[in-house]
């Protein structure tokens, strides 16, 4: 199964004066797995639905494998879609559901049955062909929905928050399943989710969206470690904010409260200007063995198993440090005065929003 080359150029969607999606530009390679990630209302589902054909862009072009499909009807795009609510037809068996796309294309029943069997095997539900959707669990229904979308050999696979209605454990299992199948078939895939863990785990690239705008596009490692905007930094993973003032842009030094901290990521503001230093909790450690140090009082210590989350109240605000658990670890106590430290390359500066 080969994928198509998907291209969105200047795609924009307005609803009654409200801009739902603003100038969306993206090129997706064949076989690539791209996630649209963002909070509710950010426009990710609207964009997906425009690719599927259920919404028409107010302006812009959508191309699939070289063809302009911007205004093509949904039933003519050969795109497979998996809905959040599964949307399995209740009056049909699992086999009939999966074969529906082929029935509609008037394929002969032998070919259709063979394809259905093939897909039932793919989703590991070989003996559920004659069951009805209401007899299946949520996870099984979602797998059938996936099989149904794949049955028509689509060029593009779209998934709209397919796992959000499922329990955490099933979600993890199904997540891996989806990626496995996607790789096996090498089908170009767009995946919409608000769960950043999901996006990070599954994608080749992530598009982070907020209020209709694309905030950043890039591989998970890059989006996480080199967030392009404050929104991305805060939405993907946890982030600590240290408010301070620029001391010397050339050397990357910043005064935060009574401490002087340094960053190697460059500062785009002049001396004396307000700036926010950002650093991920896992980069922080308790002690004074790194160059940047901030003192504070331990406010809480949460043992989460593999991670120990320590919240420290510093003069520049609350700071969260995630420490890796070790059996010989000596946990700080609530009320202790501690030093939180981190290396200069672990943080970056953003001009403070006024």
């Amino acid at each position, binding site marked *: 199964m080969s994928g198509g080359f998907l291209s969105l150029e200047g795609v924009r969607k307005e609803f009654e004066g409200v801009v739902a999606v603003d100038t969306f530009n993206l090129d997706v390679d064949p076989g690539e797995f791209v996630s649209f990630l963002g909070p509710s209302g950010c426009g990710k589902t609207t964009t997906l639905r425009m690719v*599927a054909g259920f919404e028409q862009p107010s302006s812009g072009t959508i191309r699939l494998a070289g063809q302009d499909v911007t205004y093509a009807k949904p039933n003519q795009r050969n795109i497979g879609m998996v809905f959040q609510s599964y949307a399995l*037809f209740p009056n049909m068996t699992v086999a009939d559901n999966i074969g*529906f796309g082929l029935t*509609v294309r008037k394929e002969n029943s032998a070919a259709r049955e063979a394809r259905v069997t093939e897909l039932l095997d793919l989703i590991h539900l070989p003996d559920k062909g004659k069951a009805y959707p209401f007899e299946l669990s949520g996870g099984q229904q979602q797998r059938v929905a996936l099989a149904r979308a794949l049955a028509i050999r689509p060029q593009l696979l779209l998934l709209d928050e397919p796992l959000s209605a499922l329990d955490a454990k099933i979600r993890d299992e199904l997540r891996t399943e989806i990626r496995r199948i996607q790789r096996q078939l090498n089908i170009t895939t767009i995946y919409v989710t608000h769960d950043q863990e999901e996006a990070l785990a599954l994608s080749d690239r992530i598009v982070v969206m907020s209020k209709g705008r694309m905030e950043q596009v890039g591989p998970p490692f890059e989006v996480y470690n080199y967030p392009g905007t404050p929104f991305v930094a805060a939405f993907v993973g946890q982030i600590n904010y240290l408010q301070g003032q620029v001391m010397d842009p050339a050397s990357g030094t910043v005064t935060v409260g009574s401490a002087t901290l340094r960053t190697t990521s460059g500062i785009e503001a002049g001396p004396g200007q307000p700036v926010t230093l950002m650093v991920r909790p896992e980069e922080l450690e308790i002690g004074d063995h790194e160059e940047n140090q901030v003192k504070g009082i331990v406010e809480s210590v949460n043992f989460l198993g593999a991670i120990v989350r320590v919240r420290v109240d510093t003069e520049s605000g609350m700071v969260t440090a995630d420490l890796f658990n070790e059996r010989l670890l000596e946990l700080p106590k609530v009320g202790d005065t501690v030093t939180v430290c981190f290396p200069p390359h672990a943080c970056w500066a953003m001009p403070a929003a006024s």
Partner: protein
Amino acid sequence: MTVGGAQKRPPRRRYGTWLGVLPFFVFSGLFLIAPTVILGYRSLESADGSLTIDNYRHLTSDAVMRSYGLSIRLSLTTALIGGIFGFLLAWAVSIGGLGRRLRSALSTFSGVASNFAGVPLAAAFIFTLGRIGFVTAAFELIGVDLYGAGFSLYSFWGLTLVYLYFQIPLMVLVILPALDGLKKDWREAAENLGATPRQYWRHVALPVLLPSILGTMILLFGNAFGAHATAYALTGGLLPLATLLIGQQISGDVLNNPGLGYAVAMGMVLIMAASIGVYSLLQRRSEKWLR
């Protein structure tokens, strides 16, 4: 019921709780069940007081058969036409996408119209399609003589037209929630898989809606079958409907056989019970899919 004495509650509780629903059962017994039972009992009575099912055998007599036949024909016709057109109206305001205000207007109007039956409805239609009715006169203006051509409001089809005034709204009221139950996702999933709107209706929407539509049509059937007031007000007994026959039997003994009169009534009860029963069954079936 006292609040204290928790330990001794079970026996006293059982006694007390039955007391709470007693008025309901007594009242229903007196004014719903007993009247029906007495009819059933008397229908099994022969002239000298012994038990017999002869009265039911006489149900096949000409007069009764004609009545039942006419009532059944009328009920089937209005159920079918009312069902189809009611469905189309409900479709228009829900999936057809004509806006929330039109939908709630149709909903409220249907609630009113389904209760408008009886004398006012008959009178309204007399003024519309009676011999000197508004529409009759309008047709005359353009040279069409309705009554001369054979049409009459006081006939089978005239009555059908009048009955539809409360049948269609009843269908609309009951089928609207069912149409809401048709998830938008199904339509989109079908479209996404390549189906045209016709294919979607044929393979998904209509099969899912069928139990509801069928069940409601049966409800409509029962509704028309048991209707008396409208027919009485319109035709006064001209058309020998089953309910009118029973009405005449109440005032006198038009069948010359009181036992038969009771049997006719019980026959109607059985038909109504069957129709409500089938409707409930189909309704439960459709709820499974349209929750």
